[in-house]
């Protein structure tokens, strides 16, 4: 066995290969989800709108009118009544607009909901700013109660010129089970 290379080179090689394995596992677990989210934020691809926007004083561009449509969807097994109070509004870029969604907990138990936004076309995602949105927080509603959920937004003046219509969709998820403690705190 003298002609063989020393066994420690096998040990070293194996350790390096184990390093690759550990590295790829870490890459999948801790790098891929943030990279995916960063990529989607940058491109607006999955239609997720950003968080709270700090409004800045800008001139309203009255030469352009953009139609903003509102859609509401209940995720499977979510029994609430959930709809926009107006289905569409016409706005000028730069102008702050307030609309509301209507939600009614038609069940006999206290529940918590979370609305998840999705916006098309994707090239408008980064030009649609929300200064106030019910989707920023989970929404608790006691049994039988109703609420007007506020949404205040500004369409950016730099919105690509070919975009004339923006559709904003909210899907309402039942998160009662995940957040029993939180819901009790919020209702009280």
């Amino acid at each position, binding site marked *: *066995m003298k*002609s*063989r*290379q020393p066994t420690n*080179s*096998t040990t070293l*090689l*194996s350790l390096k*290969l*184990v390093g*690759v*394995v*550990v*590295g*790829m*596992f870490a*890459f*999948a*677990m801790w790098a*891929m*989800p943030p990279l*995916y*989210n960063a990529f*989607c934020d940058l*491109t607006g*691809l*999955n239609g*997720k709108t950003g968080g709270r926007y700090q409004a800045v004083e800008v001139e309203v561009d009255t030469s352009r009118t953009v139609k903003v449509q509102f859609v509401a969807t209940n*995720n499977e097994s979510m029994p609430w009544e959930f709809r926009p109070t107006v289905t569409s509004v016409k706005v000028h870029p730069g102008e702050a607009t307030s609309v509301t969604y209507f939600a009614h907990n038609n069940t006999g138990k206290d529940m918590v909901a*979370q609305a*998840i936004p999705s916006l098309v076309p*994707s090239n408008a995602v980064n030009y649609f700013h929300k200064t106030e949105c019910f989707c920023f927080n989970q929404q608790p509603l006691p049994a039988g109660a109703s609420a007007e959920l506020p949404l205040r937004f500004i369409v950016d003046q730099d919105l690509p010129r070919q975009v004339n219509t923006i559709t904003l969709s909210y*899907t309402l*998820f*039942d*998160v009662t089970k*995940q957040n029993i403690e939180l819901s009790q705190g919020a209702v009280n």
Partner: protein
Amino acid sequence: MAHGPAKGLSRWLFTTNHKDIGSLYLWFSFAMFLLGGVFALVIRAELFEPGLQIVEPEFFNQMTTMHGLVMVFGAVMPAFVGLANWMVPMMIGAPDMALPRMNNWSFWILPFAFAMLASTLFMEGGAPNFGWTFYAPLSTTYAPPSVTFFIFAVHIMGASSIMGSINIIATILNMRAPGMTLMKMPLFVWTWLITAYLLIAVMPVLAGVVTMMLMDIHFNTSFFDAAGGGDPVLFQHVFWFFGHPEVYIMILPAFGVVSAIIPTFARKPLFGYASMVYATASIAFLSFIVWAHHMFTVGMPLAGELFFMYATMLIAVPTGVKVFNWVTTMFRGSLSFETPMLFSVAFVILFTIGGFSGLMLAIAPADFQYHDTYFVVAHFHYVLVPGAIFSITAAVYYWLPKWCGNMYNETLGKTHFWLAFVGLNLTFFPMHFVGLAGMPRRIPDYSLQFADFNMIASCGAFLFGAAQILFLFNVISTIRGKHKATDKVWENPEGLEWTLPSPAPYHTFSVPPQVK
């Protein structure tokens, strides 16, 4: 018996011998092949006629899922690891694998993983029913409780594959005989070296994606849950980042097998050895940048669709190089058609058909029509059954005389081939037509217009299944047979393994051979 194998069961439980472990892997994979085959026959029996006759739709879904998982992780991958265990040390002139104890471990955790996976069939709520691709949220929010067992089984299979791969890389890089330079290695060794690198790169990603599922199911994270800010599409990206290299893991060693067999029976050296090596490496590299062609319909931007479409089509270039090299090796050769050669020629032809349907699927705008139809099922069965399964079968017929010292019965071998060949084409060719006509995959019932082709496919499936029983009979009767094989077995085969006596002694190349 100082150097012989131990007696009884302990020989197999505690063995660190690469030949013993290779045999264990091969027998295990054949058992899984039969189990996965039974699942497939349940599917085909239900689809023999439209309407629901034999199984409940829920159980049908469990069958499609378990068939895929068992065939991919239980049959094809362990079979190739078994072949690598047997052949790689003998081909490079090494006495054994580099890490023999780990070799024992990487095999012996597999039966536990599959026992766990198979036991889910008897659990409340049934076995996993979300398809072998286990897309979230089907596999998280809507999964049966047995999904946790599935996750741990996948973890164990992954650990086994990773250990096997590290062992193979260490063996190939550190234990070659003097004079055996990298570019003198047989192509089976080359393809396995590249496959092993693919495995250590992507099996951890699979472990990662199932770990994220586990967290979502049990620890209230929201990797794939939209309500918590996650995204189910992320699952598909991570899964296919593993999944696409995985399909090459299942085919690259097959390329190595047929590259060994075709020259022997064409009585000509392999045409374009170096280009074969570079083509294999190119395919391996490209396999990392094409994953989203499985997800053309999730709503990618045009730029993404175009990139993944062209990158996918690019893979046809190195693959084409390989096919032309095999054809050119046969061209003007002195061909004879023993069983391994029949399987290898069928491999070249039928794998090419599967490659072409793959090109059709790569066309992003056309894929919207084909997506999730039986056309996809036809495509990947054409690359996996005549690709992986036929090459493994060819390898067994080619090297079995070297392993056990006895020659198989050529007539029975050829009978096996023709039954399998006819059965396979009857099963999968009609699936192209029903797929193009719009029959969706993974459904227990279908519209009447698909009835005739489905009946043909079901008949073919049972024929193919019967052919594998003949294979089992052939192998057992060869092992127990009296017809001794010569040391060279074939007329003038290339490679160090043929310099050894038949059957190959328990310990080989204790003194490394000199390679000129």
